[in-house]
């Protein structure tokens, strides 16, 4: 499998996801699951193919992490659909996934077989995959926050409940990602936490989502403030994921730079 065949798999997957989203509006449940899950399988087949042909997990470059993000968005979408029956969630996850697929099509990045020794670890795949899944869920929570802030008084209990759930599960996975990283760092670098810029931003992001969680407990009526905190948290998350590459404070300091030649 090479990157050249990505467009065909991506096209197939997006069409299937779009069909799933369409049937969600039409309330044809069986077809929703059939189309969406087949699309997910098609997309995963490509990831698996890349994994085999690269002889390493496709998780090293930014383009490769975007690949997982595009994969996890519909996964998160179908989970939310199955529990809350939102008609629009699959349209949203498909569109967002499509955006990331387009970014990858127009800016594929370099995908060489080489995987530097620091990344050859059983922790590599779980650390990054868990983070990408978390980012997908927290991205969905951010969209909910924007939606609720715009609609103000029309916001329902059910929407707040969905947002809370997305954050709880997203934060759990964020915690897994961070702690797997710490356990891995101890094996690779000899210390589990060094306040490397990426780690500092991971801690800041984690604390911001904890603010949301505790504020929702302490003042359930203040859901608008909580929504604003979700937006701030998501900005931190983006800085942690790719923003630090452009941040003056992190230039040349981070040991988390693997896709820079």
């Amino acid at each position, binding site marked *: 499998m090479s990157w050249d065949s990505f467009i065909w798999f991506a096209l197939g997957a997006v069409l299937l996801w779009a069909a799933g989203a369409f049937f969600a509006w039409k309330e044809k449940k069986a077809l929703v699951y059939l189309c969406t899950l087949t699309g997910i399988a098609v997309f995963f087949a490509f990831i698996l193919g890349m994994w085999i042909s690269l002889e390493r997990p496709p998780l090293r470059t930014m383009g490769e992490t975007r690949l997982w993000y595009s994969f996890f968005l519909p996964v998160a979408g179908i989970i939310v659909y199955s529990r809350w029956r939102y008609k629009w969630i699959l349209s949203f996850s498909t569109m967002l996934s499509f955006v990331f697929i387009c970014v990858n099509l127009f800016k594929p990045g370099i995908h060489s077989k080489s995987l530097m020794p620091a990344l050859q670890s059983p922790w590599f795949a779980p650390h990054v995959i868990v983070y990408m899944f978390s980012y997908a869920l927290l991205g969905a929570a951010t969209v909910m926050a924007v939606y609720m802030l715009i609609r103000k008084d029309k916001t329902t209990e059910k929407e707040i409940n969905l947002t809370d759930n997305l954050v709880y599960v997203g934060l759990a996975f964020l915690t897994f990602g961070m702690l797997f990283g710490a356990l891995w760092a101890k094996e690779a670098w000899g210390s589990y936490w060094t306040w490397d810029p990426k780690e*500092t931003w991971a801690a800041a992001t984690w604390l911001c989502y904890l603010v949301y969680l505790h504020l929702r407990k302490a003042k359930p009526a203040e859901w608008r403030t909580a929504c604003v905190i979700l937006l701030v948290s998501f900005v931190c998350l983006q800085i942690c994921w790719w923003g630090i590459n452009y941040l003056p404070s992190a230039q040349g300091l981070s040991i988390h730079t693997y896709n820079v030649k």
Partner: protein
Amino acid sequence: MKEGFLIGGGLLVVGLLLQITLGPIDWSLLAWPVNLVLLVLVLAAVGILYALRRKVYAFEWMMHTGAAVPCLIFAATLTILMGLLPQVKGESVPWLSQMLRFWPFVLIWTWMMVISALAALNHLLRWKVREIPFILNHLGVVVAIVAATLGNADIQSLQLTAFTGEPEWRALDDAGMVHEPGLAIELHQFTLEEYDDGTPKRFASDITVYTEDGKNVRGTVEVNKPLKVNGWKIYQYGYDVRYGAESPYSVFQLVRDPWIPWVYIGIFMMIAGALCLMLFMAPKPMKS
């Protein structure tokens, strides 16, 4: 929550005063047994706060989410600031360029640990099975961070350079001082493999470790695969880049961290806690 913001503001002021009078925090002062004394004092303080919770409203208040929110906001803000400003080593640098030595930062994080410990204790002492997720999350983070912070000064990190066939027992610390870690490393063979495009694929050293208590341990050390001998973890650290695969020596990093078991206990509690967070603590999905 106003009280919480006032406390946070107060800690910032106290921290700034400490920073002005004492200068940045010198973490090496915490080396054993000072860290143990400090731990006992902190535990005692938490115990007293808890015991007096019925008498002093503020102590009762500290263990609830209303206190957690402002504290987390302060901690997040200072951590974001740390991420935005370049952090540098050395003496006489701007305060915010060494956030980890900045008193207000450390006081806010300490406050966070104290209220998290109080909340954990509160749930622990009114024991019920359904309190487990809460306890794992709050106690886990306290155990991990307190052990990591107090134990930091006790971490020994040395570099040992071993030439092929010559057992070496001397190692250097960061300041270039010579230490004898109580073991010698003999390098048998250093291996460097490359990909077709010339990027490194594998660094590995076939070594024997001789310990003072008479053990001979033969093993391979490579990146991501350290060797553990007598409490030391031995990491592949470097080689002579001028010679590449023909390097006559291999450099190892030797790390000993006596507090690490506690950090691991905390981390595993947090992992279990995060699992509980999504399985049991998330609100039940609402269907219309």
